[in-house]
């Protein structure tokens, strides 16, 4: 460590002593025996299957956009479009652009609508709400730092390859080199998209060259219903504009060749969607192996899109993500959901684990962002991110993460 010697002042000397003691203590007390690798292999294979099964994101967005029309399902507080055969639930009204995927139509933005940083909603998709602040970094003061990054959740009723292709073109236009991507511990991808029966996944990522902190990831997931867990057909786009955020994204990714093929054709979009739940009805049913009861839709909130399995970027283990619009006092709604998490069977909050929050910080474009977390005894953590905006209803993203 000769070339790392610090200035010789009291705090630095004390730090050196602490480091020396900590190193010795760690080596003495932490001396694990090598374990069979089969367990790790099984975990990775299970995770990869989940990924291929549509593991996708914990994400995002909202912004009421004119020109998107849906049918009203009375009494739910949500304008919900449901189509089980490619048509809207009630006749005589225009189909939703997300058809047949059920969405809260008033909260959707059609293809071509602006997102941010030169990106717009790609062909073949509909934006759920608007971009959410991408919070991964922490300032030295301990507060969440939104920086300028964002996440966008896109419903994909069209061809996922068209969505990916359009986003790649947009990325190139702003100087981002987007390549096929994969978890670095799994393999180096040779195509953007993969298909396993009715399960379909595309994953791409890349940054600016020379690197200036801008980094984009694109996940597209389509998979059929799996028991209580509903089908999925959506994309998650994550944009960072700071080195710290980008490192958090790219560190675990292996990127394939830039000229890799898009990959196989996708299966058709699933048709067996359930209607978005009404107030008082359960959602997030069937996740975490049934160990946890589903959440109940609180008054003043509505699901914007169907709940999804957690994304590659959201959590490496089984999880779910839900995106809601919130009218009224968003923080009261967050607390109501946090109470559900801390009081339901299997969800009793462990007081020895982090909590309770919430923490509120300023976000981009005059928004306020509140983060609330909870951990359960069964090892599932919940995160609530509320984005209060001046130009629309607040957005609430609920994500869970196992382990």
């Amino acid at each position, binding site marked *: *460590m000769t*070339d*790392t010697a*610090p200035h010789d002042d*009291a*705090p*630095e*000397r*004390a*730090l050196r*002593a*602490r*480091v020396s*003691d*900590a*190193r010795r*203590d*760690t*080596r003495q*007390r*932490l*001396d*694990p*025996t090598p*374990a*069979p*690798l*089969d367990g*790790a*292999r099984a975990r990775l294979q299970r995770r990869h299957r989940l990924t291929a099964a549509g593991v996708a994101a*914990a994400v995002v967005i909202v912004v009421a956009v004119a020109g998107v029309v849906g049918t009203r399902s009375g009494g739910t507080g949500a304008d919900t479009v449901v189509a089980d055969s490619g048509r809207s639930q009630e006749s005589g009204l225009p189909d939703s652009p997300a058809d047949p995927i059920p969405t809260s139509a008033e909260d959707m933005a059609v293809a071509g609508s602006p997102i941010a940083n030169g990106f717009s909603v790609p062909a073949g998709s509909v934006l759920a709400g608007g971009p959410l602040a991408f*919070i991964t*970094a*922490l300032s030295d003061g*301990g*507060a*969440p730092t939104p920086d300028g990054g964002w996440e966008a959740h896109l419903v994909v009723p069209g061809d996922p390859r068209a969505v990916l292709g359009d986003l790649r073109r947009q990325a190139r236009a702003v100087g981002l080199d987007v390549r096929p991507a994969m978890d*670095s*511990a799994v393999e180096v991808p040779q195509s953007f998209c993969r298909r396993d029966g009715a399960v379909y996944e595309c994953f791409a990522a890349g940054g600016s060259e020379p690197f200036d902190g801008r980094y984009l990831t694109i996940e597209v997931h389509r998979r059929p219903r799996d028991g209580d867990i509903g089908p999925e057909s959506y994309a998650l786009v994550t944009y960072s504009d700071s080195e710290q955020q980008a*490192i*958090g994204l790219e560190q*675990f990714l292996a990127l394939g060749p830039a000229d890799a093929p898009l990959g196989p054709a996708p299966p058709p979009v699933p048709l067996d969607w359930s209607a978005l739940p009404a107030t008082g009805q359960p959602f997030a049913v069937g996740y975490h192996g049934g160990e946890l009861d589903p959440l109940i839709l609180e008054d003043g909130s509505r699901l914007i899109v169907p709940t999804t399995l957690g994304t590659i970027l*959201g*959590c*490496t283990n089984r999880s779910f993500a839900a995106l809601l619009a919130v009218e009224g006092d968003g923080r009261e709604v967050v607390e109501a959901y946090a109470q559900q998490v801390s009081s339901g069977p299997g969800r009793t909050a462990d007081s*020895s*684990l*982090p*909590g*309770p*929050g919430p*923490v509120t910080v300023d976000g981009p474009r005059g928004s306020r962002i509140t*983060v609330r*977390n909870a*951990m359960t005894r069964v090892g599932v*953590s919940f*995160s609530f991110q509320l984005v209060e905006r001046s130009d629309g209803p607040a957005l609430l993203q609920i*994500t869970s*993460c196992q*382990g």
Partner: protein
Amino acid sequence: MFDHVPVTTSDEPDESADVHADSFEDFYRAEYASVVRLAYTLTGRRDRAEELAQEGFLAAHRRWAKVSGYDDPGGWVRRVVTNRCISSGRRHVTQLRLIARLSGERPRQPELSDDAEELWAEVRGLPKRQAQVLALVFLEDRSVADVARILGCGEETVRTHLRRGRSTLADRLSDRHGKGPLT
């Protein structure tokens, strides 16, 4: 020779993995504990540290024909593991750390002495690259050149992260324990 640590190769087509199995097992046995310790400093959880270490060694096993030819296969595993340490659970881990820090609660049973736990917790609280650099330097006494090679970045970048991380740590620990000696 390594019967109590079986390494399965059946689902991997890479025949060279079998050819080099003995050398991999020696490598695994020799490096496992130190890699777990490194992962522990970056995650604060022994169970997770062991999982991540195993995943790193599994990745090495899959590419053993290539990795075994590197000058420092252990450095390659450390790169994989340190990267996964700061990415798994991503958003959740980050936010839970935030709340833990703000609430001042300890989220788990400590494995080490209080002083060691406190130091590694402060390292984990640094920006991720700084935390990786400091973990490798503090725990393994790695040189700047070593760290640069392991993390795949320039030596000057490592020096910058190291300088900033050390300064932040020294200030935080000094503030916490008073301006006098920290021990």
